[in-house]
């Protein structure tokens, strides 16, 4: 299993994501300006502040050359994970429903939170049990998930809510405590929490590793 981790100007967590992926497979960085996924089997759009979060989070990165390839890959069913800024980019790119708005506190918040697995049917959550609690950190200013109510109902009905903040732990005012969503096919997932920062008990938790392992399991099943 080979992961490609996209690096935009202003990405911050790409090396963390790379190292996390390397715990379960091979991984390399993909340069934003290249039209090339270098044969990756799974793509991670990492956290950070691509293009300085200028104008609107994710708005500029979504047009980077590499994103054309990511879109093609995603639409052909390839597993794509957007973390934090990566989630924002995938929403802007139309690969995921909804949008991310400023936290109700309007402040950046870095905090370890518990999230519950709301769907174990995606490429990135098949290795975890439905309802399982994971301890992972959030760190963002713009993480309040929004979609119009009918869309939220539809996402709920389709099982596209992937992760939810545990009761009482919603850090940003997200609709329905949503911490992550997937596309209808389940191959594209966006998360505000950072599983790549939860792969070693020494730095806080290793629960996030299960998400990276999920996608390799999927690949094994498909093979």
């Amino acid at each position: 299993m080979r992961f490609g981790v996209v690096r935009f100007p202003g990405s911050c967590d790409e090396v963390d994501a790379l190292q996390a992926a390397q715990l379960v497979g091979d991984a390399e960085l993909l340069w934003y300006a290249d039209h090339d996924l270098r044969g990756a089997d799974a793509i991670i759009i990492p956290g950070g502040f691509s293009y300085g979060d200028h104008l609107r989070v994710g708005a500029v990165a979504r047009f980077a050359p590499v994103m054309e390839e990511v879109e093609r890959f995603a639409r052909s069913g390839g597993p794509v994970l957007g973390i934090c800024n990566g989630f924002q980019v995938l929403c802007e790119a139309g690969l995921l429903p909804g949008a991310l708005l400023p936290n109700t506190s309007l402040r950046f918040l870095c905090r370890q939170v518990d999230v519950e697995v709301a769907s174990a049917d995606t490429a990135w959550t098949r290795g975890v049990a439905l309802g399982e609690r994971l301890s992972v950190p959030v760190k963002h200013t713009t993480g309040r998930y929004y979609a119009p109510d009918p869309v939220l109902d539809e996402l709920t009905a389709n099982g596209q809510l992937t992760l939810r903040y545990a009761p009482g732990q919603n850090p940003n005012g997200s609709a329905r405590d949503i911490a992550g969503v997937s596309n209808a096919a389940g191959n594209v997932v966006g998360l505000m929490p950072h599983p790549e920062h939860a792969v070693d008990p020494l730095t806080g938790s290793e629960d996030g590793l299960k998400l990276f392992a999920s996608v390799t399991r999927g690949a094994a099943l498909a093979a």
Partner: protein
Amino acid sequence: MTVASARHRELGLTDAEYEGIVERLGREPNEVELAVFSLMWSEHCAYKHSKKLLRTLPTEGPRVVMGPGENAGAVSVAGGLACAFKVESHNHPSAVEPFQGAATGVGGILRDVFAVGARPIAILDSLRFGEPADSPRSRYLLEHAVAGIGHYGNSIGVATVGGEIYFESAYEQNCLVNAMCLGLIERDRLIRSAAAGVGNVLLLFGARTGRDGIGGASVLASAELGDSDGAKRPTVQIGDPFEEKKLLECSLELLERDLLVSLQDLGAAGLSSASSEMASKGEVGLDIDVRRVPLREADMEPFEIMVSESQERMLCVVAPERVDEVVAVCEKWLVNATAIGVVTDTRSLRVFDGDALVGDMPVTALVDECPLYDLDPVAPSVPMYPAPRRVLSGGEDARAALLALLSSANLASRRWAFEQYDCLVGSRTARRPEQADAAVLMLADRSALAVSIDGNGRRVAIDPYRGTVEAVLECSANLACVGAEPLGLTNCLNFGNPEKPHIAWQLTRAIAGLGDACRALGVPVVGGNVSLYNEGGGGPIFPTPVVGMVGELPDAARAGRLGFSRAGDAVAVIAAGSWAPSLTGSELDKLRGEAPWGALPAADPGELRALHAAVRQGVRSGALHSAHDVAEGGLAVALAEACLAGGIGARVDLAARGGAGEARLFGEGPGAFVVSGPGESLRPFGAAATVIGEVGGDALEVEGALSIPVAELASAHAGGLADLLR
């Protein structure tokens, strides 16, 4: 003197200094030269009032690989690496515009670290403001400074792992914003800033140059702030962390590919300072054509271009045949790069505007020949600072006193602030804020670095010598609590106007204390910064030396924690024989409205060095399950904090440790730790350790003094600051 020359006073030069410049040039300086000299000979760049004192600090040690004099100092650490680090102030800019001031302070210290080739891995911040409960302005400054630090550090992807905040009315008019950065680099790849190689090209890369901070170094950094702060605003610099992120990655790639002869950041005094420092260190000259500098505003004068403090810029020296490669790397990172000059053998900084020579200054005159001044220290005979507003009347019992302390601005939880910082990026933060006394950063071989920053200005105000010794001891104690051994130290000396005798006394005594403590502990000073003239209409700030100390530990998994963890563990106080806590200068005294005046307990740094080594060993071996040093608020607060961090109570009896009188409970003074662990694990400490009780239950009980549920401690501690900042 000519009419034109009267301007030197407005630029902060004395008549004698001006005459010195005329003498060195052999003529009157023109506008460009006057602007450049006024900055290079400012307090900020020339350390006129501190340099002689700084020379007394110990700067050598077996682990020092780069001492003071370069952009950042560095010590050798595991795996063939060096850790480069430095602390710097951005006080005056932050008082004027706290968000941008604090943000660009972080930007500046990051550049100092990557200017030596190191990848920044951590930031710490040390902040001082007026009383938040009494002063809306202080709340405003706090809120925006913290947001600015977070904005810059978070956006650039460097973890902000620690810091400190104190509130005292002495900082009402002059807040302090100090930022520290640590970076890592392979030891043999550290790069210096000395320009070399006549004919080599001087390349400016990064952001375009605008009118940011024109006059900043001399006006903002050396003048006492008055009521007219607003009028100085147009000179404030604006930071762009996105630009700096690209600049950082680009600089590191240039070094990785060995394309540079030398590298230097642009900070205070912009191009003037960066270029003359590079030329001075390399004993060469530089010709610069300001016409080639990419500008944000077309109509800038040559002198403006030379002194602009636009952020996110670097200078490098490159062999002519490598210029194309350098430019290509810069383009890859969307960074502008422009050849603006050339290395010469003239030993002069020559400034051209196209073909016209508009400035010609001997480099040594600029960098080395600013007059240095002796201070005239006089100890004050009456208190220099007013008494703080009285919050407690003095008759309260231990329970009320402890709850008041925990919810006081100085001791309340800093969660409100540190949650605004990304402390995780880099995946090496093994101890985060409120988990341990020092931040712990794991290295690739799973050994770790630890870092702590400290400086209690109120205690330094009472006794500049002992107060400064305490700041050094406090950092060393913090490192001991995570099991780390100190490797080196950086410092930022924040003081008032050194031309005043009492301030001169504070500065002189503080630097003496700093040097003595460093020698006694065997910790070299590898760098630092001095910020003087921190005073306005309300008088001087508390003398505030801020100490940042870096240490190492062999196994990140064994890094200590401050919180009690296991019911049934013994709780002990480990203390030096000389430990003599007193209420003078304590937080409790402050809440009771006592002015900072009196005598601090003496400390014996030699004895404490051994004590710290013993605690360090206890933590490293795993014998101690928790370790926390007794500091602000005394033993009672240390016990409460250990309960809070662990979410568990404790029952203790202080009869064997001097009783539960106020001075024992709340008195302060260096030399004690609260630890927990299996009873037998305390044996190696001998007489230094006194078992006082046991971990367990859901309350902190001190026999004969107080019993408070942990939940109640927690709400006092959590709300003290956060509630003021809703």
